[in-house]
């Protein structure tokens, strides 16, 4: 924590969209990695799914939960349910 304030786009899919009330947002954060950003957003939106069920992506590629915020857009996804 205590990193620089950065501006990010966040995108949500599936039930995260319903819970956030939007498909994405632009925000400023001091989070330095994906996990920190998730905790911040989960607190704000009251996401009901556990963090370990959530997948994240940067640059349209899956990324680790501990990955640094290295991209201008971070995507959060609930468990997939295709087919």
């Amino acid at each position: 924590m205590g990193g620089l304030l950065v501006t990010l786009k966040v995108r949500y899919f599936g039930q995260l969209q319903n819970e956030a009330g939007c498909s994405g947002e632009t925000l400023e954060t001091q989070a330095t990695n994906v996990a920190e950003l998730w905790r911040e957003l989960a607190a704000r939106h009251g996401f009901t799914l556990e963090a370990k069920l959530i997948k994240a992506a940067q640059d349209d590629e899956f990324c680790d939960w501990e990955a640094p915020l290295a991209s201008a857009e971070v995507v959060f996804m609930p468990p997939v349910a295709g087919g």
Partner: protein
Amino acid sequence: MNRFVLTQERLEDLQEFKVPVSSGSVVSFWGRVRNHNEGRPVHSLDYSAYPELAVKEGQRILDEALKRWQLDAVRAAHRVGSLGLGEAAVVVEVASGHRGEGFEACRWIIDEIKARVPLWKNEHYSDSITTAS
């Protein structure tokens, strides 16, 4: 050929799967919108995708299948948007010299699609509650 596709069009209207004349076996799987889910009557359903990543991940699955099994051609498509009852949500088609590989690869591909490709469904139940997953 050997492509994963996301589309809003009906999968039933996809152009025919082109199969080389060396393929003795074509195995296909169609996943369809059922009229019920866990005991509740479904009247329609829509799928949303994270399209940029869904297409990449779907393609990776097909490429992995082509490495794991001796296949002549594979194709998979997943529909997005609103689907009616009985319509296909996903199709997987596998052409191979022998049927053993075809059945195994087709089964594996659909399992991987369901486990890995970022797609979500909203079911609209006839008892009028909507569930996102």
